[in-house]
């Protein structure tokens, strides 16, 4: 009798044992050594970056987080679909984790792929509180590889996050050492003529904007998996192997252009979701984005993984090698990026002097109906010489036409564009959105205050959505900076003009002077953060709370009427 009872009890317990993973994390003060400098920071389980957490799709995870700091902390699981109380944003999901407290997160894993986690309190994330999250799928993935590596990038700065915020508020170009100098005036004069250069400087001076304003935060040491360029993180391989590299950009402020000289990369996943494979020579990874690529080094030699910052002020570097200790050449940084008048495209009330900007219609706006699958049936007897196969000349539609930020591959090959991304397995059926919400990305560089629709988070009402609707968000970037917009808890379906094959992401980069659309199926009740993922922009006001009214079970007895189309922002 007892044996049978025991067996029954055991059988009842088994499923929960098999499906539950339990993990322990402590949040600690740690020392971070970048190779260039040593600094106190914050880490998980005694180091920064924290451990790589490996979950399985379908399991329910319990993560016990113990706060060993003397201030509040939190952990946000970036890109994960979970109940909103588990999302880890103080003030929105939960009050936060008090010093000395242990908070237990518990939620089911409903997805697979590469993600990451980080503190959502203060500037703890730039100070080192981040780690990688790898979720194994239930079924097989649409690609094969022999080994995998997490390649997590960050821009570690010798100043603490609080200090950086204060310095940027005091002097917005505090960290910008790539500004135009007298020397550049003379070299521009010799290239473009003296009066053209004078006119150019006067035009920008009139706006009180700098074309050198690409990167707010410079002077960082790029880290890959916690190691600086000198420390050289190395991933070993055997020639001929296919290696899956899980690139995660965990920076505070920096976009990286990633390439591996000598190897091309096949992008198979973006933001944790499988994409139809596209082979590129270089890609730009925005803050908080992830890209999984497959490389196949065939030769017995070392390869440099080179992540050059978008503004070319710094870099991160690691190595793929058959043996430890091998190194390959590290390329020099390219010329600093410079904005153009095209990047100012969406600014209102700007007197651009006599600069010819063209109508705002032909800038930015993408006509997607003609993008996917070009119809060549009208052509006969093609002359291959004139075919627009030249990828360099073909403008990336996600940059303003004539933008100074359009990336080109260092080896002249293919540079990944959002326009190349197609979902491998769409998560949602395509349907018409129920309404459109416009979010103008706004800011004042001189005051270093950033906002959405001109309103900072502290003064803003929440954005209210209804469970079950499909909202089309229109991001209009009225600033001259790139902004990676991240909606918590629900997927952002980026409109690249591919209908049901539009890629599914969690972080959408919006370039200066452009308008980008993305759609969200509102299928997660609760309240969620929605913000620019540049740490110092989010803290300066570029942040919103999204409230999802209703849920799968509740009766729609609530008669909350949305006052006007477009909603409150």
């Amino acid at each position: 009798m007892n044996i049978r009872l025991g067996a029954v009890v055991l059988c009842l317990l088994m499923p929960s044992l098999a499906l539950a993973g339990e993990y322990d994390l402590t949040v600690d003060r740690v020392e971070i050594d970048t190779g260039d400098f040593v600094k106190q920071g914050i880490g998980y389980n005694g180091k920064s970056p924290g451990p790589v957490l490996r979950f399985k799709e379908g399991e329910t995870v319990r993560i016990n987080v113990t706060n060993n700091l003397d201030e509040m902390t939190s952990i946000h699981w970036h890109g994960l679909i979970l109940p909103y109380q588990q999302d880890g944003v103080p003030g929105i999901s939960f009050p936060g984790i008090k010093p000395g407290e242990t908070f237990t997160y518990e939620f089911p894993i409903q997805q697979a792929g590469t993600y990451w986690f980080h503190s959502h309190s203060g500037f703890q994330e730039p100070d080192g509180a981040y780690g990688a999250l790898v979720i194994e799928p239930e079924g097989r993935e649409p690609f094969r590889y022999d080994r995998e590596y997490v390649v997590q990038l960050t821009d570690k700065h010798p100043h603490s996050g609080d200090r950086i915020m204060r310095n940027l508020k005091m002097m917005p170009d505090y960290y910008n050492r790539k500004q135009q100098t007298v020397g550049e005036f003379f070299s521009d004069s010799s290239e473009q003529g003296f009066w053209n250069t004078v006119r150019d400087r006067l035009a920008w001076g009139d706006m009180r904007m700098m074309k050198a304003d690409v990167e707010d935060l410079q002077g960082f040491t790029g880290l890959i998996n916690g190691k600086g360029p000198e420390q050289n993180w190395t991933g070993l391989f055997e020639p001929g192997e296919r290696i899956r590299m899980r690139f995660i950009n965990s920076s505070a402020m920096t976009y990286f252009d990633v390439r591996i000289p000598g190897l091309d990369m096949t992008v198979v996943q973006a933001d944790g979701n499988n994409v139809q494979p596209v082979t590129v020579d270089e890609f730009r990874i925005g803050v908080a984005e992830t890209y999984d690529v497959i490389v196949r080094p065939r030769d017995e030699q070392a390869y440099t993984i080179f992540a050059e910052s978008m503004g070319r002020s710094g870099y991160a570097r690691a190595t793929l090698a058959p043996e430890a200790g091998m190194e390959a050449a590290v390329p020099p940084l390219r010329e600093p990026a410079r904005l153009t008048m095209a990047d100012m495209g969406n600014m209102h009330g700007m007197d651009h002097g006599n600069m010819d900007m063209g109508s705002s219609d032909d800038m930015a706006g993408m006509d997607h109906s003609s993008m996917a699958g070009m119809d060549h049936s009208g052509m006969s007897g093609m002359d291959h010489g004139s075919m627009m196969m030249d990828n360099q000349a073909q403008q990336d539609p996600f940059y303003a036409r004539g933008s100074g930020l359009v990336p080109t591959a260092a080896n002249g090959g293919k540079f990944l564009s959002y326009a190349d991304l197609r979902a491998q397995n769409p998560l949602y059926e395509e349907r018409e959105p129920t309404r459109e919400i416009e979010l103008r990305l706004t800011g004042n560089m001189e005051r270093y205050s950033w906002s959405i629709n001109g309103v900072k988070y502290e003064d803003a009402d929440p954005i209210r959505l209804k469970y079950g609707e499909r909202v089309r968000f229109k991001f209009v970037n009225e600033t001259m900076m790139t902004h990676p917009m991240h909606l918590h808890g629900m997927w952002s379906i980026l409109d690249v003009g591919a209908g049901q094959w539009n890629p599914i992401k969690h972080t959408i980069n919006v370039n200066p002077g452009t308008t980008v659309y993305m759609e969200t199926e509102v299928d997660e009740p609760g309240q969620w953060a929605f913000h620019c993922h540049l740490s110092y922009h989010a803290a300066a006001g570029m942040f919103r709370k999204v409230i999802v009214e209703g849920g799968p079970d509740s009766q729609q007895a609530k008669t909350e009427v949305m006052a006007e189309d477009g909603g409150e922002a």
Partner: protein
Amino acid sequence: MSLVRFSGAVSLLVFLVLPAMAAAQAMIADTSGRKQPLTTWGIQFEELEYRYSDDDEELGVWNADAFYGTDDFKVRLLSAGEYEIDEQAYETLEHQLVGQIPVSRFFDAKAGVRFDTPEGPDRTYAVFGVTGLSPQWFEIDASLYVSKEGDTSAALEAEYELLFTNHWILTATLDATVAFSEDEEIGIGKGLASTETGLRLSYDLIDRAVSPYFGVVHERKYGDTADLAETAAGSTEDWFAVIGARIAF
């Protein structure tokens, strides 16, 4: 209604409505620091220098500024002084306390008080002005002073930075004072009273925190102010070699 249906309805209520209500209650308000306006502060010595004049005069000069506040309201404490090393006396000693609010994208309005306590008579002024960035990158500070006695004057400060490199910076400054009424006691005559122009070449040694510089400063008095200065056996025009450092944190 049968008992079964009744209990069914009750359990429906319990299982559907109560969780929804609980969930609605659980959506917390944001009382975190993020919902508060961002507060910043800073202290800067724009000038902290030793001046040596063509008349062998030696001065210790500073021009400091501390602020605290948010985008919508800042409190600023300004301090400026010229200390004559030989005479061990303050030729100039000014302190200002102003409140500042944004009035346009690039300009703030300010109002406050100024206390002058140099060697000689003290003065107290009410201060009104605007400060900000003009097109073509001039830092402008324009102030109107009204003394307790009713004497009014205005000061315009302009600053321009030329980047030789991203670390070597040439700063040009102009400081002009216009008095609308005479204040003989402190040697101010009506009209354009004085100008101070400076050219300083600095090197950003430690971030923007420590930037040593050297340069040249020209001071001049005009009109009635010049006459008053001559009467008091002072100079009306001085050239200074200066060496110092800009400190900011």
